[in-house]
Protein backbone atom coordinates (compact mmCIF):
# COMPACT_ATOMS: atom_id res chain seq x y z
CA UNK A 1 0.00 0.00 0.00
CA UNK A 2 1.12 3.55 -0.55
CA UNK A 3 3.14 4.98 2.30
CA UNK A 4 4.54 8.28 3.43
CA UNK A 5 7.40 7.85 5.88
CA UNK A 6 8.76 10.51 8.13
CA UNK A 7 11.35 10.16 10.84
CA UNK A 8 9.29 9.63 13.96
CA UNK A 9 12.16 10.67 16.20
CA UNK A 10 12.17 14.28 17.30
CA UNK A 11 14.66 16.64 15.73
CA UNK A 12 16.42 19.05 18.08
CA UNK A 13 18.40 21.92 16.64
CA UNK A 14 19.97 25.13 17.84
CA UNK A 15 18.27 28.44 17.13
CA UNK A 16 19.63 30.05 13.97
CA UNK A 17 20.55 26.75 12.29
CA UNK A 18 18.76 25.19 9.32
CA UNK A 19 16.33 22.41 10.16
CA UNK A 20 15.92 19.68 7.54
CA UNK A 21 13.04 17.23 7.71
CA UNK A 22 12.69 14.20 5.44
CA UNK A 23 9.65 12.65 3.79
CA UNK A 24 10.00 9.39 1.83
CA UNK A 25 7.24 7.80 -0.20
CA UNK A 26 6.90 4.16 -1.22
CA UNK A 27 4.66 2.06 -3.45
CA UNK A 28 3.30 4.99 -5.42
CA UNK A 29 4.25 8.16 -7.22
CA UNK A 30 2.50 11.21 -5.80
CA UNK A 31 1.75 13.96 -8.28
CA UNK A 32 2.49 16.46 -5.55
CA UNK A 33 3.52 16.72 -1.93
CA UNK A 34 2.32 19.09 0.74
CA UNK A 35 3.78 20.09 4.08
CA UNK A 36 1.76 21.07 7.15
CA UNK A 37 2.63 22.40 10.56
CA UNK A 38 0.78 21.12 13.62
CA UNK A 39 0.99 22.60 17.10
CA UNK A 40 0.02 20.48 20.14
CA UNK A 41 -3.74 20.06 20.47
CA UNK A 42 -4.44 21.93 17.22
CA UNK A 43 -5.25 21.00 13.64
CA UNK A 44 -2.57 20.97 10.93
CA UNK A 45 -1.95 24.17 9.00
CA UNK A 46 -1.03 24.02 5.31
CA UNK A 47 2.40 25.47 4.51
CA UNK A 48 3.62 24.54 1.03
CA UNK A 49 2.80 22.41 -1.98
CA UNK A 50 5.32 21.13 -4.54
CA UNK A 51 4.48 19.29 -7.76
CA UNK A 52 6.44 16.39 -9.17
CA UNK A 53 7.77 18.50 -12.04
CA UNK A 54 9.10 21.14 -9.65
CA UNK A 55 12.48 20.59 -8.06
CA UNK A 56 12.22 23.25 -5.41
CA UNK A 57 9.73 25.68 -3.86
CA UNK A 58 10.39 28.52 -1.45
CA UNK A 59 8.28 30.61 0.88
CA UNK A 60 10.06 33.04 3.18
CA UNK A 61 12.35 30.90 5.38
CA UNK A 62 10.86 27.63 4.10
CA UNK A 63 12.18 25.55 1.23
CA UNK A 64 10.83 22.26 -0.07
CA UNK A 65 12.43 19.91 -2.59
CA UNK A 66 10.96 16.99 -4.52
CA UNK A 67 13.30 14.28 -5.79
CA UNK A 68 11.43 11.67 -7.83
CA UNK A 69 14.57 9.56 -8.22
CA UNK A 70 15.12 9.24 -4.49
CA UNK A 71 11.35 9.25 -3.86
CA UNK A 72 11.88 11.92 -1.28
CA UNK A 73 10.96 15.43 -0.25
CA UNK A 74 13.09 17.58 2.02
CA UNK A 75 11.64 20.42 4.07
CA UNK A 76 14.06 23.10 5.23
CA UNK A 77 13.57 25.92 7.71
CA UNK A 78 16.45 28.38 7.56
CA UNK A 79 17.43 30.62 10.48
CA UNK A 80 15.21 28.53 12.75
CA UNK A 81 13.51 30.11 15.74
CA UNK A 82 11.96 28.63 18.90
CA UNK A 83 8.56 29.60 17.44
CA UNK A 84 9.19 27.06 14.66
CA UNK A 85 8.95 24.26 17.21
CA UNK A 86 6.05 22.06 16.14
CA UNK A 87 5.27 18.79 14.40
CA UNK A 88 5.57 18.89 10.61
CA UNK A 89 3.45 16.58 8.48
CA UNK A 90 4.12 15.50 4.92
CA UNK A 91 1.23 14.60 2.63
CA UNK A 92 1.33 12.86 -0.76
CA UNK A 93 -1.42 13.00 -3.40
CA UNK A 94 -1.69 10.85 -6.49
CA UNK A 95 -5.17 11.94 -7.54
CA UNK A 96 -8.56 11.57 -5.90
CA UNK A 97 -9.54 11.77 -2.27
CA UNK A 98 -8.64 8.17 -1.60
CA UNK A 99 -5.11 8.74 -2.81
CA UNK A 100 -4.21 11.27 -0.13
CA UNK A 101 -1.70 9.90 2.38
CA UNK A 102 -0.29 11.70 5.41
CA UNK A 103 2.90 10.85 7.23
CA UNK A 104 2.89 10.63 11.01
CA UNK A 105 4.95 13.78 11.30
CA UNK A 106 8.32 14.79 12.70
CA UNK A 107 8.52 16.85 15.87
CA UNK A 108 10.95 19.75 15.62
CA UNK A 109 12.34 21.41 18.72
CA UNK A 110 14.36 24.59 18.24
CA UNK A 111 16.51 25.26 21.27
CA UNK A 112 17.27 28.91 22.17
Amino acid at each position, binding site marked *: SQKIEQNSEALNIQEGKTATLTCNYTNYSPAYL*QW*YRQDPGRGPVFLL*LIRENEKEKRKERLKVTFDTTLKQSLFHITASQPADSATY*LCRGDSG*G*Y*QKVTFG*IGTKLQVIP
Partner: protein
Amino acid sequence: DVKVTQSSRYLVKRTGEKVFLECVQDMDHENMFWYRQDPGLGLRLIYFSYDVKMKEKGDIPEGYSVSREKKERFSLILESASTNQTSMYLCASTSLVGSNYGYTFGSGTRLTVV
Protein backbone atom coordinates in the same frame (compact mmCIF):
# COMPACT_ATOMS: atom_id res chain seq x y z
CA ASP B 1 -9.35 33.57 6.00
CA VAL B 2 -11.00 30.22 5.52
CA LYS B 3 -12.34 28.99 8.75
CA VAL B 4 -13.30 25.48 9.79
CA THR B 5 -15.01 25.36 13.15
CA GLN B 6 -15.49 22.24 15.21
CA SER B 7 -18.17 22.53 17.83
CA SER B 8 -16.24 21.11 20.78
CA ARG B 9 -12.57 21.07 21.75
CA TYR B 10 -12.99 18.36 24.37
CA LEU B 11 -15.70 15.76 24.87
CA VAL B 12 -16.11 12.95 27.36
CA LYS B 13 -18.75 10.34 26.57
CA ARG B 14 -19.78 7.01 27.97
CA THR B 15 -19.51 3.70 26.16
CA GLY B 16 -22.62 3.04 24.11
CA GLU B 17 -23.64 6.69 23.78
CA LYS B 18 -24.45 8.18 20.40
CA VAL B 19 -22.00 11.01 19.75
CA PHE B 20 -22.31 13.88 17.28
CA LEU B 21 -19.28 15.88 16.17
CA GLU B 22 -20.12 19.00 14.20
CA CYS B 23 -18.00 20.84 11.67
CA VAL B 24 -18.82 24.09 9.86
CA GLN B 25 -16.79 25.86 7.18
CA ASP B 26 -17.38 29.38 5.94
CA MET B 27 -15.73 29.41 2.51
CA ASP B 28 -18.27 27.58 0.36
CA HIS B 29 -15.97 24.57 -0.07
CA GLU B 30 -17.40 21.58 -1.88
CA ASN B 31 -15.23 18.99 -0.18
CA MET B 32 -15.19 18.13 3.50
CA PHE B 33 -13.39 15.40 5.42
CA TRP B 34 -13.30 13.71 8.79
CA TYR B 35 -10.00 12.32 10.07
CA ARG B 36 -8.91 10.79 13.32
CA GLN B 37 -5.38 11.21 14.58
CA ASP B 38 -3.69 8.78 16.94
CA PRO B 39 -0.07 8.67 18.13
CA GLY B 40 2.08 6.57 15.85
CA LEU B 41 -0.74 6.14 13.33
CA GLY B 42 -1.03 9.64 11.95
CA LEU B 43 -4.11 10.97 10.21
CA ARG B 44 -6.60 8.38 8.99
CA LEU B 45 -9.55 9.27 6.79
CA ILE B 46 -12.93 8.21 8.16
CA TYR B 47 -15.37 9.72 5.63
CA PHE B 48 -15.44 12.50 3.09
CA SER B 49 -18.09 14.37 1.17
CA TYR B 50 -17.73 16.14 -2.17
CA ASP B 51 -21.22 17.61 -2.28
CA VAL B 52 -24.37 18.04 -0.24
CA LYS B 53 -25.92 14.68 0.66
CA MET B 54 -22.96 12.87 -0.90
CA LYS B 55 -20.56 10.80 1.18
CA GLU B 56 -17.78 8.34 0.60
CA LYS B 57 -16.08 5.94 2.97
CA GLY B 58 -12.48 6.54 3.83
CA ASP B 59 -10.00 4.07 5.24
CA ILE B 60 -11.67 3.44 8.61
CA PRO B 61 -15.45 4.03 8.38
CA GLU B 62 -16.54 1.21 10.71
CA GLY B 63 -18.47 2.47 13.71
CA TYR B 64 -19.01 5.90 12.16
CA SER B 65 -21.55 7.59 9.92
CA VAL B 66 -21.77 11.10 8.50
CA SER B 67 -24.36 13.61 7.44
CA ARG B 68 -24.11 16.53 5.05
CA GLU B 69 -27.46 18.25 4.70
CA LYS B 70 -26.01 21.70 4.00
CA LYS B 71 -22.87 22.63 2.09
CA GLU B 72 -21.21 24.29 5.05
CA ARG B 73 -21.85 21.58 7.64
CA PHE B 74 -20.46 18.07 7.90
CA SER B 75 -21.33 15.95 10.91
CA LEU B 76 -19.62 12.82 12.18
CA ILE B 77 -21.74 10.39 14.16
CA LEU B 78 -20.49 7.64 16.42
CA GLU B 79 -23.48 5.33 16.53
CA SER B 80 -22.45 3.59 19.76
CA ALA B 81 -19.27 4.99 21.21
CA SER B 82 -16.55 2.55 22.26
CA THR B 83 -13.30 3.09 24.12
CA ASN B 84 -11.26 2.42 20.96
CA GLN B 85 -12.84 5.52 19.46
CA THR B 86 -11.03 7.70 21.98
CA SER B 87 -9.00 9.95 19.70
CA MET B 88 -8.44 13.40 18.25
CA TYR B 89 -10.98 14.07 15.50
CA LEU B 90 -10.15 16.59 12.81
CA CYS B 91 -12.46 18.07 10.22
CA ALA B 92 -11.03 19.56 7.01
CA SER B 93 -12.30 21.24 3.88
CA THR B 94 -10.99 22.23 0.48
CA SER B 95 -12.42 23.70 -2.67
CA LEU B 96 -10.69 21.32 -5.05
CA VAL B 97 -8.62 18.20 -4.76
CA GLY B 98 -5.13 19.27 -5.60
CA SER B 99 -5.86 22.86 -4.67
CA ASN B 100 -2.79 24.97 -4.12
CA TYR B 101 -4.29 25.87 -0.77
CA GLY B 102 -4.26 22.37 0.64
CA TYR B 103 -6.76 21.33 3.26
CA THR B 104 -7.98 23.73 5.91
CA PHE B 105 -8.35 21.92 9.20
CA GLY B 106 -10.40 22.72 12.24
CA SER B 107 -8.82 22.85 15.69
CA GLY B 108 -9.90 19.32 16.47
CA THR B 109 -12.10 17.61 19.01
CA ARG B 110 -10.41 15.43 21.57
CA LEU B 111 -12.93 12.73 22.38
CA THR B 112 -12.56 10.46 25.37
CA VAL B 113 -14.90 7.48 25.68
CA VAL B 114 -15.07 6.02 29.18
